[in-house]
Each structure stands twice: as structure tokens, then as C-alpha cells.
């Protein structure tokens, strides 16, 4: 094995040359591969014409380094706390949600400087002065405005912490390197990339003109070159920062709005770009506003993407155990999770079982307005007191299990004032986000016990309609001023209310009957195994044998005969519950046993409703 590793390293070195530090000097590798590829292109005075929208080998080098040679862990993770510390033009990683799409940008991809072809790919500003005029090629890149995933829970950051920036002298800005030298071996300096509050900063005490960063409690020194937090951007209230990601060589349709992805590329910050645009000779620039002018490099970092991949819940797990999801293994974890859920829910077995099914649900298919696979849950019988006990425990647990979750206090005031609906601001050309701009797999818990009597203003009414549509068809209407654009979502919705919710028509309504309050503590191993369990089961395929379907169909028909009030919503829910039950045991195919289990759950639930 060692030999193959050495072989691979030598091969990579041959491609780029060992002198190129891919993390500290990625552009060096880009240029080297470009020159090599241009030289290799046989014939013609325009060897680089073929490189339009294609990778000449640069991205391949990085891909191999990151995923085959374990380089991923060496790349720092960009977040609110280390924005100002990372040296420009080094390699970074950013995990976030695509909040806005800013279209295409045309740039001089390749130009001829004398007799050499040079490239501007992966940079904002040409490192070599472009002779004017010169032969050049206009290439395109796509701009995506990304933010940290709303509701991202802190455990997700442990999965891929990135290296300690202290150790990476070549990636620190010159100021930080100086500080490091001065402070010597002071242990108080812990620049952790997790952005957790409580870690202290590089300097021991803040200077007077330091900028207080609202997101973390760490105080960072500010210098003219440090990008300040753009927490004041009214388009993304609540986000501590955002990143302008520029993606190359890819059809734009591969990235969808609200996708969660990891982008790895060149971190750019150019003081030259940061300087305010001089009153240029050409009046044209005063008249046509550029959307990216609102995202100045002094406030919003740019990431020129070399490699990217979509992230799902599985990618946020700390250790990526390449374990087969065998039914025997899953059954055990299921049992332990179920017992824990029962404890959290005051020993209410029925509620715990329903909660498990709910946490395992996801949208399977969508046909017009009919969605299959969702299972929103409404626990009734909660009051302010029980919410403060069980609701709180439940919330803590969900935060520990789901990668992104939010708890929403559904009071009249909230409904009348919250911005749920994302809206396009045509004056600025950007999308103003709303609470309902969520990634696939997000979890929302609504506390409806806060709902007092009162009147709903028109905004409140609009918000309830939005929530109702979200629940019933997993669609959110975005307001584009002259028309509405519907965006599909796939989020899990849990409601805690006193009576059956009027506002949010959940699929499954369960009266909550807690008997005892117990202290609940899960170990981190348990939490990790449950997280893996939930993510894995959700991704299992579901199917069933035709005979089983036939039996189920017959049973449904007789049930309908006995109870005229049954409609396709109930029947669909029964089937969903049965299929999720099967998945929860690790089975890929629905069996009659699982169908019976789901029916039994329904029976107990119906009994309780009476």
C-alpha cells in the first residue's frame, strides 16, 4: 500500500511539480498546468481556444490532491471567525447554502502577453498586466451568493474542522504572522475554525478601533485589509457573513437554489478591487448598476471554485464509517433511539414511535401537487408548562440529531411581523431572504402554544397561507414583484399545540400523554450513532412486492367501506408510515409485518383521539 501511495504522490508531483504548494499557492499550480497544457496543444496560433468551459487539467490536480491524497483536511474551512485571518489567494473550503444566483460574469479567460498565453481563470484581477490591445478570449463563470446554512447545528462543524490556522504560517495574513511571532508560545491564542463562542482571539485585548463581530463572542483585531462582517446586509438578515462563489466549467443548472454544498477554491481578496471605483471616464458605469457592486470585496469574500460537491446529511457526520447499513445493525440503533425518544417524551410510547417516523420522513416523489413521503407531525395536549419541559428537551434533542433545525415561536406577533417569504428586490437585483428559504432536509418545530387570541394583520394572514402551503404541498412562493415563483422544498415540520392546530394542517396528529419527567442525557457516541442512523435510513430506497401492495389495497378498501370518512389522504399516510417503518428496520422492501405495525400505531392513535 505504501508503494502505491508513493507512486500516486510521484504522479501528482510529475503533473505539477513538487514546488507547488496546492494549499498555499493554488494559483501557481493553475498557471503551471495552464502553461503545460497550452504547450501541449498541438499547432495553431490559438492553443487555448479549446479550453473554453473545460478544465485543462487544473481541477483534476486539485481533485486528486483533496480526495485521493487526503488533502481535504489540510484546507482551512472559511467561516465568520477566520475571514480576516486567511491569506488571500490561498485555498479554502466553504460549506453553505446557495442563497441567490447572480447570473453570469464574463472575464478575460486567456490573453496573449507578447508570445505567451496567460490565464485569468480563478482570479478576480489579472495578476499580470494585460497589454491593451491583445488577443484574448472571453470566458464565462457563474456567480452564486452563499450563506452559512440557516439553522445549522454546531455538531455539524465537528465533522470537518479543518486544520488549526496557527500551524499554517503560509496561510495567515502578514499581520497575524507578526502577532504569532510576538506572542510566542502563548496558549491563550486558539484560533479555532469552528466559530464556537468562547475561543479567544489572536490578540489578548482588543484595540480601540476594533470592530466587534456580532456572530461569535471572539474579538478579532481589525486592520484595513480585514473584511468586515456584512451582518448589516438587509438581504440576508441573520447571516453572519456570506461568500460570493464563482463556479467555472459547469452548466449552471447543476446548482439549484437552496442547495447545500462544499466549495473548495481560491480565496480572493484584492485591496485594489476594494478601493471605491474612481469616477471613471466612461459614464456608462454610473448608469448600469452592477449587482456585485453591492457585495464589495472588502465585506464579502470571494471563492473561485476549483472543486465542489453537494452535501447531504451523511456528509455532515463526524466519522464517515463505511459501514453497511445491515438490518441487524440498524435494528439495534433503532431500539436505542426509540428508548431515548420515549424518555424525552415522558414515557409516551406512542408519541415516541410517531416522532421516530416523522424524523425519518422525506419527500420521495412529487406528481403535480401530490407529494409522497412527507409526514408532518402535530403533538396536541401541550401547554406552556409542558412545552417548557418536554418541548425544551425535544428541541435540544432535535438540535443534536438534525444537521439544520429551527424552533419557531408561533405567536400572533411573530405571524404579523416575521418575514417568511423570500422576495426579489428588483431595485437592487438581489433576493431578500425569508425564514422559509430552507435547504432540503431542514427541520422546523412550531410552538403553537404561544398563540393567543388576537387579530392577524394582512401580513399575518399571508404568512399563515405560506405555512399552510408549505405543509400541504411542500412549496414556497417567492415574491418576484410582478409574478410569484414557486420553489419546491423538502422540510420536516413538527408542531406543538394545545388543540389540533388550525393554522398548520399536519399529516399526523397525536395527543401527547406524558407520565413522567426524566433527566435525559445522551452520550456523544449515542448521538453520533443516531445521527448516522437517521441520515442512512432516510437515504434507503423504498419498494414493495406486488402481492403486498395487493393485500394492502384490499385492506384499504375494506377500511373505507367501514368508515366512509376515510379518504386518500389517510390512506396515503398509512402507506407512508408503513414504508418508513420498514426503512427504520433497514428493510428495503415493505412487508406485511411493517404494514401491521403501522396499522397498530394508527389504531392506538385513533383510540387516544377519542
Amino acid at each position: 500500500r505504501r508503494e502505491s501511495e508513493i507512486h500516486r504522490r510521484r504522479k501528482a508531483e510529475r503533473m505539477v511539480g513538487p514546488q507547488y504548494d496546492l494549499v498555499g499557492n493554488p494559483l501557481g499550480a493553475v498557471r503551471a498546468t495552464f502553461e503545460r497544457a497550452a504547450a501541449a496543444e498541438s499547432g495553431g496560433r490559438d492553443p487555448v481556444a479549446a479550453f473554453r468551459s473545460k478544465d485543462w487539467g487544473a481541477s483534476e490536480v486539485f481533485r486528486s490532491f483533496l480526495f485521493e491524497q487526503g488533502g481535504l483536511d489540510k484546507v482551512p474551512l472559511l467561516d465568520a471567525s477566520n475571514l480576516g485571518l486567511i491569506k488571500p489567494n490561498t485555498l479554502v473550503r466553504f460549506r453553505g447554502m446557495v442563497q441567490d444566483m447572480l447570473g453570469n460574469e464574463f472575464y478575460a479567460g486567456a490573453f496573449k502577453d507578447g508570445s505567451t498565453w496567460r490565464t485569468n481563470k480563478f482570479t478576480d484581477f489579472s495578476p499580470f498586466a494585460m497589454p491593451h490591445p491583445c488577443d484574448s478570449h472571453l470566458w464565462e463563470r457563474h456567480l452564486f451568493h452563499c450563506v452559512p446554512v440557516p439553522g445549522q447545528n454546531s455538531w455539524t462543524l465537528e465533522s470537518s474542522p479543518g486544520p488549526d490556522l496557527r500551524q499554517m504560517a503560509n496561510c495567515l495574513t502578514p499581520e497575524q504572522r507578526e502577532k504569532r511571532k510576538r506572542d510566542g508560545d502563548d496558549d491563550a491564542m486558539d484560533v479555532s475554525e469552528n466559530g464556537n463562542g468562547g475561543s479567544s482571539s489572536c490578540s489578548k485585548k482588543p484595540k480601540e478601533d476594533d470592530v466587534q463581530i456580532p456572530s461569535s463572542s471572539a474579538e478579532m483585531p481589525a486592520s484595513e485589509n480585514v473584511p468586515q462582517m456584512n451582518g448589516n446586509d438587509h438581504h440576508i438578515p441573520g447571516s453572519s457573513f456570506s461568500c460570493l462563489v464563482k463556479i467555472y466549467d459547469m452548466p449552471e443548472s447543476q446548482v439549484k437554489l437552496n442547495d447545500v454544498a462544499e466549495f473548495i477554491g481560491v480565496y480572493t481578496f484584492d485591496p485594489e478591487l476594494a478601493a471605491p471605483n474612481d469616477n471613471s471616464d466612461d459614464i456608462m458605469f454610473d448608469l448600469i448598476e452592477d449587482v456585485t457592486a453591492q457585495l464589495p470585496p472588502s465585506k464579502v469574500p470571494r471563492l473561485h471554485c476549483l472543486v465542489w460537491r453537494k452535501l447531504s446529511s451523511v456528509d455532515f457526520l463526524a466519522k464517515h464509517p463505511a459501514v453497511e447499513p445491515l438490518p441487524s445493525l440498524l435494528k439495534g440503533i433503532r431500539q436505542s433511539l426509540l428508548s431515548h425518544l420515549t424518555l424525552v417524551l415522558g414515557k409516551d410510547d406512542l408519541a415516541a414511535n410517531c416522532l421516530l417516523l416523522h424524523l425519518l420522513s422525506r419527500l420521495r416523489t412529487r406528481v403535480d401537487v401530490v407529494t409522497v413521503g412527507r409526514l408532518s407531525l402535530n403533538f396536541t395536549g401541550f401547554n406552556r408548562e409542558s412545552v417548557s419541559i418536554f418541548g425544551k428537551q425535544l428541541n435540544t434533542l432535535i438540535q443534536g440529531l438534525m444537521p439544520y433545525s429551527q424552533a419557531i415561536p408561533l405567536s400572533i406577533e411573530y405571524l404579523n411581523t416575521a418575514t417568511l417569504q423570500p422576495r426579489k428586490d428588483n431595485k437592487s437585483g438581489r433576493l431578500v431572504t425569508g425564514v422559509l428559504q430552507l435547504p432540503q432536509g431542514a427541520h422546523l418545530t412550531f410552538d403553537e402554544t404561544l398563540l393567543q387570541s388576537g387579530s392577524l394583520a394582512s401580513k399575518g394572514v399571508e404568512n399563515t397561507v405560506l405555512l399552510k402551503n408549505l405543509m400541504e404541498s411542500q412549496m414556497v412562493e417567492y415574491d418576484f414583484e410582478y409574478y410569484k415563483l414557486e420553489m419546491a422544498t423538502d422540510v420536516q415540520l413538527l408542531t406543538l399545540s394545545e388543540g389540533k392546530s388550525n393554522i398548520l394542517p399536519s399529516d399526523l396528529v397525536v395527543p401527547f400523554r406524558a407520565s413522567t419527567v426524566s433527566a435525559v442525557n445522551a452520550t456523544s457516541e449515542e448521538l453520533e450513532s443516531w445521527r448516522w442512523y437517521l441520515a442512512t435510513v432516510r437515504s434507503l430506497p423504498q419498494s414493495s412486492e406486488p402481492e403486498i401492495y395487493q393485500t394492502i389495497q384490499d385492506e384499504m378498501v375494506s377500511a373505507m367501506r367501514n368508515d366512509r370518512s376515510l379518504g386518500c389522504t389517510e390512506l396515503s399516510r398509512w402507506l407512508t408510515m408503513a414504508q418508513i417503518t420498514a426503512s427504520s428496520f433497514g428493510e428495503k422492501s415493505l412487508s406485511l409485518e411493517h404494514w401491521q405495525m403501522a396499522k397498530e400505531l394508527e389504531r392506538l392513535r385513533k383510540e387516544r383521539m377519542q
Partner: protein
Amino acid sequence: AMDVNEEAMAANKRAFLDFLDQDVGKGVYMQAVRDMVQSKRHRLTIGMDDLRNHNLDLARRVIRSPGEFMQPASDAVTEVARNLDPKFLKEGERVLVGFTGPFGFHRVTPRDLMSSFIGTMVCVEGIVTKCSLVRPKVVKSVHYCPATAAFMSREYRDITSFVGLPTGSVYPTRDENGNLLVTEYGMCQYKDHQTLSMQEVPENAAPGQLPRTVDVIVEDDLVDCCKPGDRVSIVGLYKALPGKSKGSVSGVFRTVLIANNVSLLNKEANAPVYTREDLKRMKEISRRNDTFDLLGNSLAPSIYGHIWIKKAVVLLMLGGVEKNLKNGTHLRGDINMMMVGDPSVAKSQLLRAVMNIAPLAISTTGRGSSGVGLTAAVTSDQETGKLLKVVHTLMFGFCTSSNQMPVSRGKKA
């Protein structure tokens, strides 16, 4: 190199002159130029189909490298217009050219505008989402130097100009000898300028994608031709501007569409344009003896009879003349009309006929109409004491209302 350029321009101009004049013998475009001169417009719209029929190669080149043809085309039409009517154009004025008609692959949405379209002519459809203010842009500035009593002028060109390199926009304040200059604003030439943003129509947006936007520049007679919310089809040149940062090239390019023709795709936008022929015929009709009968009979021809009702409707649509008497009495020129009759005598049908003719017409029933757009008063009927809602006509439009319903007390209109 300059000479070659001028030769090419002259050749292109000749090609357009051929097209306008020869015109497959039909003279359609000469007529169009005449109409344009007569209605005092300064833009001629050329159909691509007609151009293709005349010279396929020319049409192709116009779409692929319009920069070489816009100025010659404008020169050609200006020359023709001058020959037709020497007084039509002032010194230095020119006629502009717009294009319409099938563009094939060059008919695109904002999403399709890739770098391969840069420098070509495209027809883009979308929704206007933002309109800037209309600003005057200086085209030529004239300066007077008191010291030497000499005038000098300077021209300014930018990306919207088709000939010459872009100039800066700096005003000269001194001449080459350092003497102070005074700007003669009255002699300067300006051009109206406006920028628009156009977005992809929502029906075309792919799931999970946000509609794309393209910036458009409209000038001269095209300013204020549309407002945010309108669906439009804009024909123009798709050009790239080099980005600038501290005077040097930054490597990033902005793109913009320089419009030469804007058509509104809304249904309401199809206002009729009257040609000289139409006006001539209208005058002929007015000289007849039975004009009034003719008009009455022409209204809602599918309804038989009711000639006096129809004549009354014609008078309603024409309106009267407002009078202000010496004693201060103001007499309105509008007429209101109320048709009463048994059911099924075609009252509503006549109203509908009016709706199809009047440029602005809304129809409403008494019930269910909000106060917006309607002025109404509640009065009591002398005989029965019931309250009735009475509807007045709107300003600049026609309001037809069916089925007056008795209104309860306290109900506001």
C-alpha cells in the same frame, strides 16, 4: 485601415439603399419612409423577412455583425428621407433604424445570452423589472473661447455609438493654448438615455433556478416606451463593456443590450396607428350626408335595429364640448347614458360592443365592485324611497354597469 473601413461602410449603405428602393417592386419601404416622415417619427423599422427576401447574405451579416451595418443603414434611410422631404430633418439630425421579424437562433431569453452572442443582434423577450430615470446625454458640446473668439466643438461617443472609438466624458475647459473656454449649452446636442433591467419570463424558469436578468440601454425615441411589469420583446446589439478599476482593465466584462426596437407584448399595447390613407378616408366619410346613420349602423352590427340607441352610444363615445359660461357656470362635455328595458333586449350586448371600441373601458356589475375606479353616489329614489346606487362615468374612460341593485342604507360605494 481607415479607408478600408469607409469603403465597407459605403458599400453597406448602398446595399441598404438598394433594399429600400428596389424592394421587390412593391415600394413598401418607400411608403413606410413616407409614413414615418408624415408622422414625424425618426425611426424606421425594417423587417428581417423582407431583408432576407431581398438579400439573404445581407440579412445574415446584419444579424452576425450588426456593428458594421447600423450606421450605414441609418445613413441610407436618412438620405432617402431627406430626398423625400428636405425640410423634415434639421442640420445634423438623422433617422435611426430598428429591426423586427424572425431572428431564428437569435431570438433568445436572458438566460440564453452566452458569450457567443456578444457583438451580434438578438431579440430578447422578458419582463421589464426596473427602469431608470431618463437622462440627457451629451453628444456634442460646443465651447466658445472669449480670448480667441473661436468656437470649438467636441463629440462624445460611448458604447452606444456605432462608429468611432469611445471617448472620455471629460469636458474641455481650456483650449490647446490654455485659454479658458465657455460652454455654449444652447448649441450642445443631447440625446435621451435610459437603462432598463429585463428578466426572464417566469414560465421559462427551470425548477430551482432563478430568472436571469439582462441590462438594456434605450435611447432617443425609445425612452419611456415601457414600464416595470411590462412583457416586452427587445431587439438590439449585445455588447460587452470592459470593466475598469483605477483606469486599467480589470479583466471582467459587463454586458448590455443596446436596443433598436422595443415591442410590448401586452394585449393592451396594440394601439392602432393611422396611416395617411386612413386619414384621407376618414375625411371622405366626414363629408358625406349620412355620416351619423353610417356610424350608428356600424356599431354592434350583429344587433338588429335599435338605431336610435346606437346613435346615442356613438354620441356618448364622441363626447360633447365643455363650456364655461360668462356667469361662471361650468357645463360638462361628457354625457352619461342609462339604458332601461326588458330583459334580453341586447342592453348588455351593446355595452360589450362599446368595450371593444373604446380604448379604455372597464365593465362592472353593480354588486361586487369596490370603490376603486368607480365613483358612485347613493341617492334615494323619489317615489319609492329606496336607496339607489348611481354610477358616473370615469375620467378618460368608459364605465359600463349592468343591473343597478338597490343598496342598503349605510353601504358606501
